[in-house]
């Protein structure tokens, strides 16, 4: 159950459409999304209000406090738009969050960019899984709200919660939202996260949305290719390039082990040399590990600079993954990239255990002598992360030798 952030545009659209469906509420949300390739003529045709309404313009990129960072521009009639907001009664804060036992609803009458300074005014209730969202349950949130606003606000909170649950949201935050002239709630800013594992049943309701990458992150060609492979297989294939010029690279089996290998490289003081985070698991077949290893090796061997590099082909002791079968694909990839591996002065350090590991390790050893590259191979008798130190020491030794030779 991975939680994936979605854009403000999608959060608002989902809320509007499904609040109408689930709560009969017609929310006056009007949003238009502009992308790099958006045709403005077509956009105005689709949303005629764009040419007649004062507009708020802001980047939709998964980070908050945009007002604080001066990133919100008011395209038309700045003064009028400011008045429009100032005339509103108040700015409210609403956050619905998934917890182990159910959901937490937090509400405040002092919403806005200063919410953290008014955190003492945020009230929360916890709703257990399956618990009905009654007026009684919500009462603690609305205790200080003017009486005439309570029924409308209660209906809005209950409906927002219904949308949250029905669409497999894991987080829905409106900070702030306001009440329009007719008293209907209107989110000025909103962020949301959906549970992407629910796609098999909720994708239709979600409509056409994408899960954008975290702010500041862009996929390289190899990463994008691996992400596509990951989507197309029952196994798990992950690749994140951290430092394209790194000298320590990893290709680790297992979700748990892969994190620990990265930890260990950091513990050994070589974090700035760590090229990537990479993980394969869930019993990928030889064809899948072959395609995956090719992509990874392309990153690992890119731009040879004459200095030694190390690739850690690591893993714990597998429960069910056939080590020889997964290694078969990796070995084939290394063989095909033998020239690049030599050109990049890449040395391989292998450690793995599990079903059929002896055959897998033997094949790795044989590969080294067959194509004339350096491969050190260890099995379950060695500690899992011991090869990290060997790899880093190898780089230090090589550098020392290179320096001596240069003198």
């Amino acid at each position, binding site marked *: 159950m991975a939680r994936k952030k979605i854009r403000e545009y999608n959060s608002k659209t989902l809320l509007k459409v499904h609040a109408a469906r689930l709560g009969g509420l017609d929310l006056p949300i009007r949003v238009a999304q502009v992308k790099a390739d958006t045709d403005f003529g077509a956009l105005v045709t689709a949303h005629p209000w764009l040419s007649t309404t004062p507009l708020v313009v802001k980047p939709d990129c998964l980070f908050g406090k945009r007002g604080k960072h001066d990133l919100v521009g008011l395209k038309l009639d700045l003064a009028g738009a400011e008045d429009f907001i100032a005339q509103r009664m108040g700015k409210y804060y609403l956050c619905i969050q998934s917890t182990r036992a159910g959901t937490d609803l937090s509400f405040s009458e002092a919403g806005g960019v200063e919410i953290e300074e008014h955190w003492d005014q945020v009230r929360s209730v916890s709703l257990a899984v399956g618990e009905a969202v009654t007026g009684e349950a919500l009462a603690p949130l609305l205790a200080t709200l003017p009486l005439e606003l309570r029924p409308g606000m209660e209906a809005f909170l209950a409906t927002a919660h219904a949308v949250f649950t029905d669409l497999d949201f894991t987080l829905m935050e409106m900070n702030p939202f306001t009440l329009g002239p007719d008293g209907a709630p209107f989110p000025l800013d909103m962020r949301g996260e959906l549970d992407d594992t*629910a796609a098999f049943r909720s994708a239709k309701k979600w409509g056409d949305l994408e899960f954008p990458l975290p702010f500041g992150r862009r996929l390289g060609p190899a990463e994008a290719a691996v992400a596509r492979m990951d989507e197309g297989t029952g196994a798990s294939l992950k690749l994140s390039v951290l430092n394209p010029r790194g000298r320590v690279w990893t290709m680790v089996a297992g979700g748990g082990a892969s994190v620990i290998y990265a930890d260990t490289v950091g513990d050994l003081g070589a974090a700035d040399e760590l090229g990537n985070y990479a993980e394969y698991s869930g019993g990928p077949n030889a064809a899948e590990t072959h395609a995956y290893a090719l992509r990874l090796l392309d990153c690992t061997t890119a731009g040879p600079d004459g200095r030694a590099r190390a690739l850690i082909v690591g893993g714990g002791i597998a429960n069910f993954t056939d080590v020889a079968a997964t290694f078969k694909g990796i070995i084939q990839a290394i063989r095909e990239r033998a020239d690049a591996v030599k050109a990049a002065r890449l040395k391989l350090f292998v450690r793995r255990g599990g079903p059929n590991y002896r055959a897998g390790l033997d094949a790795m050893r044989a590969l080294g002598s067959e194509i004339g590259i350096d491969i050190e191979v260890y099995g379950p008798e060695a500690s899992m992360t011991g090869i990290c130190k060997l790899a880093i020491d190898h780089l230090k030794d090589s550098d020392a030798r290179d320096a001596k030779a240069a003198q």
Partner: protein
Amino acid sequence: MPTSPRPSAGRYGQAGQLFTKQTQAIFYNWFQKVFFGAEEVAIPQYGSTAEAAKAHPKADVFINMASFRSAYESTLEALQLPTIRTVAVIAEGVPERDTKHLIAVARRGNKVVLGPATVGGVQAGAFKIADAAGTLDNILACRLYRPGCVGFVSKSGGMSNELYNVIARAADGVYEGVAIGGDAFPGSTLSDHCLRYQNIPGVAMIVVLGEIGGRDEYSLVEALASGAITKPVVAWVSGTCATLFATEVQFGHAGAKSGGDDESAQAKNAALAAAGAVVPASFEDLEATIARVYRGLVDAGRVTPARDDPPPAVPEDLAAAKRAGRVRVPTHVVSSICDDRGEEPTYNGVSMSELMQGDATVADAIGLLWFKRRLPGYATKFIEMCVVLCADHGPCVSGAHNTIVTARAGKDLISSLVSGLLTIGPRFGGAIDGAAQYFKEAVDEGWEPDEFVEKMKKRGIRVPGIGHRIKSKDNRDKRVELLQRYARTHFPSTRYLDYAVEVEGYTLQKAANLVLNVDGCIVGMFTKVEIDSIVKIGYLNGLFVLARTIGLIGHCLDQKRLGQPLYRHPWDDVLYTK
């Protein structure tokens, strides 16, 4: 361990051991025959979970192998059965909302959910779930065949197996180990299991492997701080590297993501250490830390190291032993004509693509698969001529007739074909091998043609390859003429053919219909070496069978296309006699 504690009513904090040697489990969406010791057993199957539970009221563990799509419904059903007390959900990718609902239902029924996305767990010397603990090799290496004194819980399934190994080296091994899965909200938490271990007398110390993301470790911090857990706990939370990354990285596990600062590995390690857990400096240091705590317990007399009696012998899996080169097994089948193990199948070493690129014909396939060599062009052409000429000989010959009768009886293509093929024998189409055998004998012995015919007559054997029901000296078989002409033009040697023609010259003096027939003619085409090597096996009849199969299939299809009714032979065509 017949008197081992069972999961008791109440919260996890009061639960103890989940599995014993007597534990029975119900698998969902999984059937295999499995080895139990040296014997193979088939696990009984039922149409529904309720049925299985009814038939096996002592089975209190439910192991769900359903996919993420259906894991929720099937788990919910199991949790509602009174006999089920522990459920393991193996599927990865179960939606958070579904898991939360399962957690709520389990809590109400005082049941334990392992997973989703768990590899399961192992009760050393007693019970293991599905793939947990890996191969038998590994179980021996980790001494999981008998309980040690360490209770172990981790998020990661792959790392749990690694840690069974580490714990077997650093201490006397695992008493019980479980993986709770890497989701944000696992069905049972690290602390749930630590609290259970606190209640199990056989567990002297607890090892926990946590992970970045989520707040699960903090309930363990609370349990330690409140004194609910008093046994020594060695804990490590992985994911310290996340701070090294410039942007958020989704690690391999769904729940492993840098959230707030207090969800970082560093914060959780610090909180655990502050609450009294023994936290190593790094993962590398974990093994030494476990060893130190374990030695402390042994030195204080609180733990007596588990005895290492020799494990019960379990025969090794043949496939594994073979792969490892520890046994050799005689094969039961030898094949020398083809191989389908490589990138593409080969016929006698020649690959499909080679054949296709070389415009190979049916005769080339026959050469490779029957004669085990590439035949020269004149030979493949000759085989093709034989196949074409022998493909059919009208609807009245006995093979075709049988096929027609069978097809009209409503039988399928293969039955109709086979009924015709089964007619082939010494009197119908099967004379080629016989002719080859006798002609070979005659030539080898150096008999003159007339001498040969007379010897055969004395033996009471008709000369195979000679004689035809209709064709005669003045009405030669066109097929024989064509084959002969081709052979004389293209074959390097026609020694047997020349002999056969000489024999025909002699027999024609006896009767006009004792002509060289197709069978005899085909035999005449082969060289001595070929006849020596092929005559015993029946190659030549194979050529006739192959060719005639084309015609017989044609007759069967023809009858079906025409919708012909059941054939019944007319009475008046039968002489009824006493």
